[in-house]
């Protein structure tokens, strides 16, 4: 019999959470919510005596200073009470920790079926209609994918029963079954694949059938009691062959043509041609590149004794459905990659990148979640995932564009550090061997993430698990990581990898390739609840799990250590050299496949790619006359653009100091409100060496040319780390591609060949810039299919495709953090310099965006020119010649100058006539052109000579001085003051849009 405990703050205490609910109801929906108070509800589904109930209530769940609680509904005034609880099978993190605490104070292990379910009751006051209460419930408080809702008016409310008893228990009530799949013909197998949502590629089916028909395969299978392939086997093959795991798009064959030009350029694998090849060339020249292109993350040398590891991921589709759950699962998930790299690294940083629709969107389309709500949820997900993992979040980026209404992008990047040697051997090398045990560590397995897409359209019953939308559990994972690092240092880990996409199927399958075989007893895998089929256990993507190989002799010590850290570890099989993946369930074989099957000759995917140049697409520069009056309002409006304005509220919620390593934080300046160019960490506390990390994305440029977009993104990410003082010779890159569907389909994707050409051009630029700047790609991922089908005004559906998006992350060594620089002007009277040439490159700029144009002249990167400048600037920074350094990014020189001024809380006087430029540029272009390769640097009078001498060979000019008042003045080509304002006015404009958000 479950007990329901209600807890709330004492009536005279301010309820901050409730106040924020009421505020959002008013701000987002105009609903007159006067106040809201939050009641935490615990449903204790277990047998407890009255004494036990009372001690649980008072000792754990009620703070005598601030809270009241009762096993009867609390009497709190409301006009509407809205109850929100999880659906069955959704990860209830507080429920799990509550159970731990209860066992602790009762000093006994509770029966395995005992559960605590947490939920909330919101007591809202105000003149609100039922419909409005429903809006608050479904569009602010709950996502019906994972949560259930009950709404009570005063009339509906029974003060003795309250919300009633709701225990969202998973009851599957079925015996697990292995199903054999007949495959008489290609067509019948395809039909089964579609019915079971196996997502087998039709082109792969003949290869699969051929394998199972081979005589020796048939004989060998008969010996273990199998004939036709089982669902476990086909799920395994389907997972391994999926685009997500196998990168079929990037490994595909592209036929690239340019409109109006003869000939077809054939590219056999974008990955091999544009990623692997340049990276291996660069690796051969740069010994600091340690291990790339095969493990969960790339490995680079940090110092003599340590390597750093880095990778980037996206978690788009899940976040688009359930923003909080998707984002927290994404960030917690990417943290397992460095943990599963080499013999395991300790996490030292995470970063974020969000692309969403306009926050104030009120157009005709109805996205799954409104961008505002989506963004709120994503921000909170990354907050809890990062902060509760104890990993600092030194930087991030945000981009608004209507193309992301169809599907949002959530990028998460992770950095780790590991000793160069573990037990005297290189830490980045690992392999499984015959006889080693297969261990699964961390969380348990449920129906999470299985065939997510179909599951989301299933009809829910009261006890159907809704676990396909996951909620990451940073707490369980943090415990596991503490444990694994200790196990690593004791030499207990022979091999480690994470369970992400594809679950055990992928992690065991891949690790078994080293030893050449594996036997798994699937019935040993610990489950969240009974009733999962074998294939579900095998491919479940339940989070917070790692797969390891350990030696038999280390088993006892490994398990002791696991117990000390309160982490569940289970031996589920052993590695062999049989060549087979052999899975059993209670002794009976349910899969018996040659590991070499996946190396069979599966047909390569093929894509037509047809490029049309901007001119061919009819793009041109707008016909504009220049503003006649002051430019001050224009500059203010630029600073207020959604993609340029202050977004301080986001990283302010992210712990960027934990571990004590922070050198350059996400914010710089007098008021710590201006974003830094890059984050810098000092991951080894006893060392002065640092790592800089920066990110850039410029999807707007893709509307003109993805080659230019890619080159500019990479150049920006490079300049960002140069600006803070990183060594240009030790920059690594991580590429994260997010692209709309590129497969050609006359009906479903008529512009597929153009989108494919955009991808090819982007990859070409990637390779060109990598070679020119000497950047190895330490890691990277692709996420295709960034499209959505949104209902419009009349019930029609629109396909909305995102702009082709590349997030490029740079990581770089800072030889001595004490030489780092920041963007803020430091002293009045300092001299202001512009480095690099400004060109007439306003195409897809923020200025054109503001004025309603796209234009044609997208910035073109000149990498050879740039890298020489960057090297020289780096020397000048190391010699202490620069008081401030900031790159010129989106918004151009005008915005860059404003940022350095706002950060230093100092004004400036600048003369645009002095800006180094190419061609006949007007004031607008000088101020807002987004040409790559530029910096704004301030220098003291004392260093003027040395600085100018050091940079004499480059296009560098002194354009003005830092003023000793807050006055901010920019003189134009015709000698009049275009901008005459002060830093306070600019700051107000820059913070106007989101300054009120917390």
């Amino acid at each position: 019999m479950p007990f329901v405990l209600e807890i709330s703050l004492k009536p005279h205490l301010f309820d901050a959470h409730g106040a924020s609910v009421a505020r959002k109801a008013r701000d987002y929906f105009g609903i007159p919510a006067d106040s809201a108070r939050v009641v935490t509800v615990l449903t204790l589904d277990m047998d407890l005596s009255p004494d036990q109930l009372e001690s649980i209530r008072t000792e754990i769940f009620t703070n005598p200073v601030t809270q009241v609680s009762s096993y009867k509904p609390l009497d709190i005034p409301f006009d509407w009470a809205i109850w929100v609880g999880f659906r069955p099978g959704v990860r209830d993190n507080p429920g799990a920790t509550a159970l731990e605490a209860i066992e602790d104070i009762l000093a006994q292990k509770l029966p395995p079926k005992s559960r605590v379910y947490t939920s909330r009751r919101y007591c809202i006051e105000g003149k609100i209609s039922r419909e409005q209460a429903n809006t608050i419930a479904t569009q602010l408080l709950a996502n019906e994918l994972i949560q259930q809702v009950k709404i009570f008016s005063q009339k509906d409310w029974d003060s003795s029963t309250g919300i009633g008893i709701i225990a969202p228990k998973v009851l599957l009530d079925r015996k697990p079954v292995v199903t054999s799949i007949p495959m008489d013909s290609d067509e019948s197998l395809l039909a089964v694949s579609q019915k079971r949502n196996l997502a087998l590629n039709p082109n792969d089916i003949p290869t699969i059938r051929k394998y199972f028909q081979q005589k020796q395969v048939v004989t060998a299978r008969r010996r273990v009691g199998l004939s036709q392939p089982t669902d476990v086997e086909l799920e395994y093959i389907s997972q391994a062959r999926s685009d997500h795991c196998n990168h079929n798009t990037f490994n595909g064959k592209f036929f690239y043509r340019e409109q109006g030009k003869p000939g077809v350029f054939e590219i056999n694998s974008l990955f091999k041609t544009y990623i692997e090849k340049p990276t291996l060339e660069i690796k051969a020249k740069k010994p600091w590149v340690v291990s790339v292109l095969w493990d969960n993350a790339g490995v680079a040398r940090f110092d003599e004794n340590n390597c750093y590891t880095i990778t980037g991921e996206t978690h788009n589709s899940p976040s688009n459905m359930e923003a909080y759950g998707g984002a927290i699962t994404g960030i917690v998930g990417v943290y397992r990659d460095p943990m599963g790299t080499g013999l395991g690294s300790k996490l030292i940083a995470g970063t974020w990148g969000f692309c969403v629709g306009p926050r104030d969107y009120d157009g005709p389309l109805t996205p799954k979640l409104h961008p505002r709500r989506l963004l709120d949820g994503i921000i909170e997900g990354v907050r809890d995932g990062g902060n509760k993992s104890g990993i600092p979040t030194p930087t991030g980026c945000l981009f608004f564009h209507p193309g992301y209404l169809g599907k949002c992008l959530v990028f998460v990047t992770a950095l780790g550090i590991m000793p160069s040697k573990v037990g005297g051997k290189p830490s980045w090398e690992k392999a499984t061997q015959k006889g080693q045990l297969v261990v699964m560590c961390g969380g348990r397995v449920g129906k999470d993430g299985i065939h997510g897409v179909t599951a989301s359209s299933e009809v829910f019953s009261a006890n159907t698990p809704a676990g396909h939308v996951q909620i990451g559990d940073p707490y369980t994972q943090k415990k596991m990581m503490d444990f694994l690092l200790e196990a690593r240092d004791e030499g207990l880990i022979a091999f480690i990898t994470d369970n992400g996409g594809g679950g055990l199927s992928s992690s065991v399958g891949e690790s078994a390739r080293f030893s050449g075989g594996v036997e798994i007893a699937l019935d040993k895998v610990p489950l969240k609840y009974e009733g999962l089929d074998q294939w579900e256990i095998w491919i479940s993507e339940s989070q917070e799990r790692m797969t390891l190989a350990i030696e038999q002799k280390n088993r006892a010590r490994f398990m002791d250590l696991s117990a000390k850290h309160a982490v569940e570890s289970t031996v589920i099989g052993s590695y062999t050299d049989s060549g087979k993946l052999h899975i059993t369930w209670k002794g009976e074989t349910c899969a018996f496949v040659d590991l070499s099957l996946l190396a069979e000759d599966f047909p390569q995917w093929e894509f037509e790619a047809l490029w049309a140049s901007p001119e061919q697409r009819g793009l041109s520069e707008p016909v504009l006359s220049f503003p006649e009056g002051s430019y001050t309002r224009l500059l203010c409006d630029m600073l207020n653009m959604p993609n340029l304005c202050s977004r301080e509220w986001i990283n302010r919620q992210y712990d960027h100091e934990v571990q004590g390593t922070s050198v350059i934080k996400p914010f710089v300046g007098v008021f710590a409100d201006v974003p830094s160019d890059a984050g810098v960490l000092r991951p080894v506390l006893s060392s002065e060496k640092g790592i800089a990390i920066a990110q850039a994305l410029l999807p707007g440029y893709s509307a003109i040319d993805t080659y230019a977009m890619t080159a500019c993104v990479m150049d920006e990410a490079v300049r960002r780390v140069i600006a803070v003082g990183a060594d240009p010779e030790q920059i690594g890159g991580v590429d994260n591609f997010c692209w709309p569907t590129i497969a050609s389909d006359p009906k479903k994707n008529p512009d597929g060949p153009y989108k494919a050409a955009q991808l090819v051009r982007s990859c070409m630029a990637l390779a060109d810039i990598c070679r020119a700047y000497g950047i190895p790609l330490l890691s990277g991922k692709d996420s295709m299919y960034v499209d959505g089908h949104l209902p419009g005004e009349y019930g029609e559906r629109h396909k909305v495709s995102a702009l082709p998006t590349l997030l490029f992350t740079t990581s770089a060594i800072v030889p001595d953090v004490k030489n780092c620089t920041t963007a803020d002007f430091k002293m009045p009277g300092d001299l202001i310099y512009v480095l690099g040439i400004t060109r007439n490159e306003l195409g897809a700029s923020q200025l054109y965006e503001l004025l309603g144009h796209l234009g044609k002249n997208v910035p073109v990167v000149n990498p050879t020119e740039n890298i020489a400048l960057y090297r020289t600037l780096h020397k000048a920074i190391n010699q202490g010649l620069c008081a401030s350094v900031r790159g010129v990014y989106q918004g151009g020189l005008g915005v860059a100058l404003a940022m350095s001024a706002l950060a230093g809380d100092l004004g400036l006087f600048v003369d645009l006539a002095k800006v180094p430029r190419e061609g006949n540029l007007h004031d607008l272009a000088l101020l807002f052109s987004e040409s790559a390769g530029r910096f704004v640097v301030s220098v003291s009078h004392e260093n003027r000579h040395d600085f100018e001498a050091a940079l004499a060979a480059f296009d560098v000019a002194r354009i003005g001085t830092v003023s000793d008042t807050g006055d901010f003045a920019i003189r134009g080509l015709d000698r009049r003051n275009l901008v005459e304002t002060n830093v306070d006015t600019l700051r107000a404009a820059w913070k106007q849009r989101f300054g009120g958000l917390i």
Partner: protein
Amino acid sequence: MTPRALVLAGYGLNCDHETAFAFEKSGGQAQRVHINSLINKEVSLADFQILAFVGGFSWADDHGAGVIQAVRLKYNLGREILDFVEAGNLVIGICNGFQALVNLGLLPGLEKDYTKRTVALTYNDSGNFRNAWVTVAANEKSPCVFTKGLSVLDMPIRHGEGKFFAEQDVLDRLVENNQIALTYAMQDGSPAQGRFPQNPNGSHNDIAGICDPTGRIFGLMPHPEAFIHPTNHPRWTFHREVQKRNGLEAPPQPAIAVIKNAVDFARQAF
């Protein structure tokens, strides 16, 4: 003798490494110890002079920050901890550690009752987690061992539940006993008087940290272990320029001084 500091770890705590480093850098000897190793008696509290409850999210802070950690320790190590305190040793709780100390009742320890909960650290008025640097002022009249000789310090706060709350009679007692060792302040050290963001969470009386009546148990929300190197300070590149130009103004004192006070005290006391 080199004072020994036991730094708690495990169960979602996450500042153990840098806290241990801070003790070592301050001349102490630090050992990171998993809460279960202490409970299982693999490690004995009696071998240490300083016990550090560190920052993090113990048990994910799902049921009130530091609550389950306090329950766990009270039920498994209650007596040992009280003995440790009674022997005159030092206890520091930082952020989540401070939250655990007030839930254990080790703070404020009025009437020498180290088991009673009379103060709380509750949700920030902003309703959200916040990472920001704050200025704090030390109360020179306080018996607090950790803030002795310090006046104004900069440190980051990183919490969602840091608002100090107590009923007025308790607050009065804390003021009377000079147990309010650290308060949020303006940059010049004058009281924040509840102003945001200088007082980042709405704490009553601007309280950032309190000690017990003996001054040997100290809890604070800001993180002294996050300011262990000059480059941790958010304005260090500015301070460097100031130093270069006139060489006069000294950069801010790293907040690791709080930890060093503890090590120095323990060295003399034992």
